[in-house]
């Protein structure tokens, strides 16, 4: 094999270009020596998790996140899905809530656990964010109690316009911002929009706690309800009442990892940006293989490299290039497929028969691809991925023959 160049695609009989799998996901875990230091610290203090009230590192993390997001209240949770579940309960949401079908399945699952009926809206085909005219269409024709907005791919929905709509129709608004940690909209940090927002600190996100999440809100009463749900000894000065508790504590070691990860945030973000720009540079010349750049934000975390595959120009379909990449050990992903409105139990909900058939969502689910970006990828890796795609473009007939025989 010629050094630095791929000879033959693995799917056509060559050996995989990458010897180790390259996954999609940030995976910026703080290095082992820092982790060891934090663990020893915790073992010295002998305080492992929050019991009746927040542990010391949780308190520290919440204070630092509050400063980072420029938000009054941050409540740490075990993961973003549980944060969304708790939030819908604390907000007292019932009935019908508008949510895009184009999001990670957990967004809709959080509604299911609160016995809320999701009313799916379509997306704008270019930005892949919620289509405002669709949202308004649904609001004007149905009894809606809330909107669960989603901020995707290191970008954001048109949150300020959605806020206006929510206000106009008198419905509650909150956001699944699992992917939007550290993003800014018109120089305001995501975390400040709607009544509350939920962030993820999963291993694949830019701030990690291995598993983790946080709810951000400027609404003190709402914050108190959430704390009362988690912490037994929490006494609210605002005398809030909760219907039922929940368990979603983050441990002290998870908090320690998140604190270190928060320290690394800007370095990681800048690294992401460099990698993202390099992808744009190299992929520029390939027809029908376009990066969906983060939209709607004045500052992005660049945590995703999202491609829209146009088969009529590229020659291969999204699924075909996915097979090619997989054979080379590039673990590209096809989020979100199948789209939520086609998955049970959500496919059984029928709110308004005249609603859009979610055409843009369907199209996106058939043409969107994510490439690796983060700690597991460097410039050399991106060059190799580019070579694979270039070769696939050149060899598309042979590939199609191979895939269908």
């Amino acid at each position, binding site marked *: 094999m010629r050094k630095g160049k791929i000879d033959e695609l693995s799917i056509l009989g060559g050996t995989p270009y990458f010897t180790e799998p390259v996954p999609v996901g940030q995976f910026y875990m703080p290095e082992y020596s820092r982790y060891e230091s934090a663990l020893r610290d915790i073992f010295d203090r002998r305080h492992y998790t929050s019991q009746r009230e927040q542990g010391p590192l949780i308190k520290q993390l919440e204070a630092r996140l509050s400063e980072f997001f420029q938000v009054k209240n941050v409540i740490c949770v075990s993961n973003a899905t549980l944060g969304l579940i708790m939030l819908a309960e604390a907000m007292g949401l019932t009935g019908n809530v508008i949510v895009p079908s184009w999001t990670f*399945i957990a967004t809709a699952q959080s509604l299911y656990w609160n016995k809320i009926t999701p009313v799916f809206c379509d997306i704008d085909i270019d930005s892949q964010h919620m289509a405002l005219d669709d949202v308004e269409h649904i609001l004007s024709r149905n009894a809606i109690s809330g909107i669960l907005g989603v901020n995707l791919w290191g970008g954001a929905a048109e949150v300020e316009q959605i806020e206006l709509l929510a206000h106009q129709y008198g419905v509650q608004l909150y956001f699944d911002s699992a992917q939007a940690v550290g993003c800014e909209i018109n120089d305001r940090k995501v975390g400040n929009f709607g009544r509350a927002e939920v962030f993820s600190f999963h291993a694949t996100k830019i701030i990690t706690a291995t598993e983790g999440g946080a709810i951000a809100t400027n609404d003190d009463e709402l914050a108190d309800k959430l704390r009362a749900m988690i912490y037994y000894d929490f006494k609210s000065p605002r005398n809030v009442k909760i*219907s039922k508790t929940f368990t979603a504590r983050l*441990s002290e070691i998870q908090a320690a990892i998140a604190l270190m990860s928060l320290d690394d945030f800007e370095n990681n973000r800048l690294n992401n940006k460099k990698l993202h720009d390099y992808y744009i540079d190299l992929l520029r010349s390939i027809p029908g293989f376009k990066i969906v750049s983060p939209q709607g934000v004045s500052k992005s975390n660049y945590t995703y490299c999202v491609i829209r595959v146009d088969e009529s120009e590229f020659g291969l379909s999204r699924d075909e290039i996915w097979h090619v990449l997989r054979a080379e050990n590039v673990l590209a992903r096809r989020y979100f497929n199948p789209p939520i409105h086609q998955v049970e139990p959500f496919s059984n909900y029928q709110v308004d028969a005249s609603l859009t058939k979610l055409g843009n969502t369907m199209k996106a689910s058939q043409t969107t691809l994510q490439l690796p970006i983060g700690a597991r990828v460097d410039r050399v890796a991106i060059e190799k991925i580019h070579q694979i795609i270039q070769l696939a473009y050149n060899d598309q007939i042979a590939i199609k023959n191979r895939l269908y025989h």
Partner: protein
Amino acid sequence: MNLSNEFSLFGNQPLFFEPKPLGCLYQPDIDKVLDYSKIFYKNKRYTNDGELTILLEKRLAKLHRVKHAIVFANGFLAILLTIKALALPGKTEVIVPSLAYRKLDDIIAWAGLIPRYCDIDLNTLTASVESIENSITENTALILVQNSSVGLVDINEIRKKAKKYGIPVINDSALFFGKTNNEMVGANGDAEIFLLNATKFINGFEGGYVTTNDDLLASTLATTRRFGFTREDNVDFGASLNAKLNEVHAASALAFLDNLDKYIINYKEQFMAYKNTLEGIEGIDFIGRIEDNGCYFRDMGMMILLTDKWLLTREETISLLNAEGILARNYYFPLHLKDVGYKRITALLPNTHTIHDRLINLPQGAHVSICDIYKICEFIKKIKIYESELKKQLRGMNNEER
């Protein structure tokens, strides 16, 4: 009688400057935790069915002598997803004892079902078989029982009754780990729940697990705890969420299991110290229990019962203890008396009413030495000695405050 020379509540120095907590807080060997951690650092997989999580499940299954152990982010989610998996479709009620973990009925409500409270047996403080049988209706979807801190559920009898109607049984064994009659406790209902929480026994920071011999249940739970994905890009169970355990917690739990016997021996020593030293104090019954042929652990197992020969109320007794840094606490508060926002069904629960406000849990675990236990017991004896004066002054104090 000058109480201010004897009791911190009346101005004396506390017995313990560093409070003695109720939570066990046993610490695994840190070097073992780090060794396990090196594994996930090497393979760069920090969650999502990582190598340590899989290893932990295998070891727990082997330890409990069951086919399957499925781990979760915490016990609450373990119970929630198991209820969802087992509850009879179309039925609405879950029978649960009132004198039980304070969140059990909340979990039932999150599962979209209605708690129906039953009474306990005074000997074991677990759900009484008779009361369960009286609570079964045509709407019963599931029975949720719990091993108490002083007794084990009569699981064979309960299963017999439940089987007549095809009702599944889940046993929450967060408070008990170990053997009884040489049989390891686990998979004793259709499913049994245990914890990996630092305040309980196995210190995995936070976590929980289910033991079962039911293959279908095991595969369902492995799926519903990770959003319902049966394979990449394929969701089969929409009624799922994120209840995954991460590799760091798994590392800690594994390290703990490596030294299991050490903690069990410590438990027994503490138990015997309390039992022997509290012997013969009028008004106090030490009702903690050792299982026959057991090697085991009980959370909140150092339990005393105040009899009618004890002149102070439980609240007064606990105030005196807490003031000394002895963080004794009430046992469970009856669920049917709790203020909640969802529907539930109750009945007369005479045993629960008789006993619930006379139970106190005393400190145990890693922060408590045998010497500390002697001091705690001596202090309890002192309360008895000064009982009448304490009663007078405590109630006199309250009168003045009005």
